């Protein structure tokens, strides 16, 4: 019996050693351990073994079974490993072949610039609001201290719908609408489309975007205006950005200023972008004119405020070094995909 088991074991192990596939291994397993396998047959013959010998013979059988099973597992693992290696080998690709692109759309550069700007002001506690693009003459001019027949009305080349209604020439009317509705403290920016009757060329467009800003509260100062816009400039154009305020005139602010930032291309040394001056004009601003506050129902003795207006296209063109404003409204896919 012992001889027989030994033979079975040796034969099985030898066959397993030679087995090259999972199928072959399975066949061997069935041949020895299956229902009609040789070892199973041996177990079936246990009835003929004397009862006192049975534990001993049982032990031999179990040893044999274990030896075969261990070998089976070992060979199986080896074969699987080999098969995996072969598969991986076969699956090798040329990694330098072209990427498969998913077509993802692109935001308009104006929107990207606007979102950056909004992020800065939202961070400073400003609410983003909107106003109508077609606006009453009252809000666009009169309430901003630009009375009828004021030359500034001509300067802005207004599109008229009728005597009372215009295409807004600036986002400033939103200031008035907000002040009429909301009690200070007010901190808003109002981005939007504005219109002026300029012929289309590389630097002009009859339709463009502005971002209006307004802060009204007790004790707001010209120094606050400077500090706020300096912080905006640093966050928008880089921490090293310097600002310069020049006196200017807007009917709805007093004092008024224009703000230049140090050229973000050359850092202020002078280049083509800043026309050699080292500075780039970015926005107009000022302390809200007391008349404007009063007309909007806010007492200028109690409150003060500042306002600013930024040309969005100007920022977009400068930021991306786009040399022709018309590109922004042509919607050529080859242009839009660059942002």
């Amino acid at each position, binding site marked *: 019996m012992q001889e027989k088991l030994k033979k079975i074991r040796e034969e099985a192990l030898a066959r397993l050693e030679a087995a090259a596939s999972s199928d072959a291994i399975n066949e061997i397993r069935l041949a020895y351990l299956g229902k009609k396998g040789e070892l199973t047959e041996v177990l079936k013959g246990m009835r003929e073994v004397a009862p006192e010998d049975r534990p001993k013979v049982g032990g031999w059988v179990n040893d044999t079974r274990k030896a075969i099973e261990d070998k089976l597992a070992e060979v199986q693992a080896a074969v699987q490993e080999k098969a995996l290696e072969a598969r991986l080998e076969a699956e090798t690709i040329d990694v330098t072949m072209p990427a498969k692109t998913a077509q993802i759309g692109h935001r308009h550069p104006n929107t990207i610039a606007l979102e950056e700007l909004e992020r800065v002001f939202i961070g400073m506690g400003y609410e983003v609001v909107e106003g109508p693009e077609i606006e009453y003459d009252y809000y666009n001019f009169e309430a901003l201290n630009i009375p009828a027949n004021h030359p500034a009305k001509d300067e802005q080349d207004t599109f008229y719908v009728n005597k009372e209604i215009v295409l807004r020439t600036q986002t400033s009317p939103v200031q008035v609408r907000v002040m009429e509705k909301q009690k200070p403290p007010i901190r808003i920016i109002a981005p939007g489309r504005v219109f002026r009757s300029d012929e289309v060329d590389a630097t002009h467009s009859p339709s463009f975007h502005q971002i209006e800003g307004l802060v009204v509260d007790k004790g707001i100062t010209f*120094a606050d205006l400077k500090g706020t816009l300096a912080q905006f400039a640093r966050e928008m154009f880089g921490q090293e950005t310097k600002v310069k305020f020049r006196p200017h005139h807007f009917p709805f602010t007093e004092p008024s200023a224009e703000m230049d930032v140090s050229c973000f291309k050359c850092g202020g040394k002078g280049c083509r972008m800043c026309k050699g001056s080292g500075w780039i004009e970015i926005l107009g601003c000022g302390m809200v004119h007391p008349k404007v506050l009063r007309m909007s129902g806010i007492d200028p003795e109690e409150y003060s405020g500042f306002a600013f207006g930024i040309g969005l296209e100007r920022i977009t063109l400068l930021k991306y070094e786009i040399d022709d404003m018309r590109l922004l*409204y042509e919607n050529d896919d080859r242009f839009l995909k660059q942002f």
Partner: protein
Amino acid sequence: MNTSYNWIKAYVPGLTATAQEYTDAMTLSGTKVEGFTSYDRNLKSIVVGRILELEPHPNANKLVVCRVDIGNGSPLQIVTGAPNAAKDQLVAVVTDGGKVAGDHSGNYPEDGFEIKAGALRGVESAGMMCSIEELGSDRNFYPEAPENGIYVFSEESGVKPGDDAIEALGLHDTVFEYEITSNRVDCYSVLGIAREAAATFRKPFVPPVVPETGNSEQASDYISVDVQDPALCPRYIARVVKNIKIGPSPEWMKRRLRASGIRPINNLVDITNYVMEEFGQPMHAFDYDQIAGHKIIVRRAADGDVFETLDGQPRKLDSNILMICDAEKEIALAGIMGGNNSKITDDVRTMVFECACFDGTNIRLSSKRLGLRTDSSGKFEKGLDPENAEAAVNRACALVEELGCGEVVGGKVDVYAKAPEKKEIAFRPDWINDFLGTDLSEETMLSYFPPLELEYDADRRVVKIPTFRQDLECEADLAEEVARFFGYDNVPTTLPTGEATAGKLSYKARVENVARDVLEYCGFSQGMNYSFESPKVWDKLRLPADSPLRQAVTILNPLGEDYSIMRTISLGGMLSSLATNYNRRNKNVRLYELANIYLPKAVPVTELPDERMQLTFGFYGEGDFFTLKAVAEEFFRKAGMKARAEYENDGRFPFFHPGRQDVIRYDGETVGYLGEVHPKTAEAFDLNTRAYIAVLDMPAILPFTNLDNKKYEGIARFPAVTRDLSMVMDKSLNVGTVEKMLWQRGGKILESVELFDVYEGEQVGAGKKSVAYKLVFRAKDRTLEEKDITGVMNKILNGLGQLGIELRA
């Protein structure tokens, strides 16, 4: 506004700043200098010389060899090709190592031309004699210069060899170009700018001294003035000059005029222009002998009158145009242009100087209606100070005497309704500090005022404003004066304190951002179009004549028909953009736009229109109708809209394919539409390919969106049961109808409905189609039992029956 630096320096004698220093300081104090040109920028080592001798050049018959005395005792040998060179001439000589600005042909390189001694065709030449072009100028400014040849000084000019030729020509000067803001009327004048310069550099301001002029006669014996419309003409001054001698103006005056961009004509014209630049006050000169009745009447024109201005053009008048008339006729458009019938000619013997103040708005509007804008009207329309007129006319008369161009008659006729009162503004230094965020002493603030001629009344604590500063009205204006001269850059920088506010986007803007994100994920890039377009777009879109979309907000003064109406539908812009791309051979272009349409509430427009934000997206190339539908639904899902949108083709959109269009409804509301562009519309936009466009009306969608109250609903834990349903139905029946029924009857346990097969063909018979669905059932709280499914399936089968649909085996 351009001025000569020398002219400014004449009234601010202490001014020594370089051109760049002047530019920077003036800009920072509020008189913005846009740029400057120094005439002598590229002129170096140029002296006056006298040609002592001329000899022919041995090797070139067009050249001559000159000996030129340049005042240092050792005459130079200079070879020249100038055809006008002659013995004894006084000329401008650039010596070895010097520089000239240009060449004969009018080339003016950035750094000029350097001149070196050398040989010309074998003969040594130690320098060059200069033409006016080489000196950086031209015959417009120096009409005495020859057309071809070197500049020659006249003996009367008094120059001698060795003198600085640049100085002699008046070219040591810089012209500044300013951007004057519209509120600073006073700065549209040399004196106004000089006053600002004096205040900026803290130097004394020394305006010209104007002596009394006039003989013993009285102007009022010559002329009378009747102002019939004092509102439009607050002041009219007339002075008379007789025995006029027309001639050229002196060089200093010509130079200053040239620097201001004005061509010198003759002494009389030049004086009026000079005073206009210096005082900012336009004047007009009439030929006294042409004034009928020697009477000036200022009145409005009659409607329909025609008047010939001195440029020979007939001008049609109306009753809002103010005219200067004599006893019989109109002789000038007040403040705009004189008439041909009274203009000064070379034969003039006696003339009347008009120095008036007209209503700025009236002049501006008249000049606009007439289409005639002149230097004069440009100044008047800003609204001039009537006080300035008297000083200006006296200055003009003083110049007449100084230049010897006539005899000034004594006295003046001055019709002056009422002198403006000096405004007073309360001076509260604390308020100014609080407003600016500064900590300036009262003395410091007050120190800024005198140079600006602002008088402080310490007893009443008010500042008296001179009449020429019409822009100063309130304390904020005073604060600006303080800030300007303290320096904007010296004001501290602080951040607002006070109650904190929450920064945020509006909900609408957030939903729009979701739309942008979804569209971009789906491959659409953002475009931008104009809000105005041509009404022809409506024809291209095949809108019926009575379509409400043809009722638009119309612009009264558009840039042209193509920009004349505010769009009522967003398709035009999208189609144009797609066509632009297609015709530039860009492949597979997908665009979206988020912008308003403008729907008037009534036509003609009496109130603001309804501005509706439209999410428009379209494409050509890969994809079809259902690609768009998927994008719309992706947006709905992302925007938190859980219900199912419904689609119906009722054929209402003439710009879409009749069989490939639908209205999108959500919860019964129309929220948008989409379709394949009708071939005729596509062709009208020059887009010769299939294109698909969807429009979502954001205001309609907004109430259904939910960005803030999304809640986790759990992930299904119990097993699903699947049933396939295969059916045959009329081809004309929409699957949407079937699905609506499935969802209604499927109840809560119906989790999903998937259409997995649609087949039309012989096997199902003509006019029929076979459709197959996979239905998935699941309950949230338990494992479904067979009877649950059977119950629901029976309802569904009944529903199919009611729709006349048979199940397929």
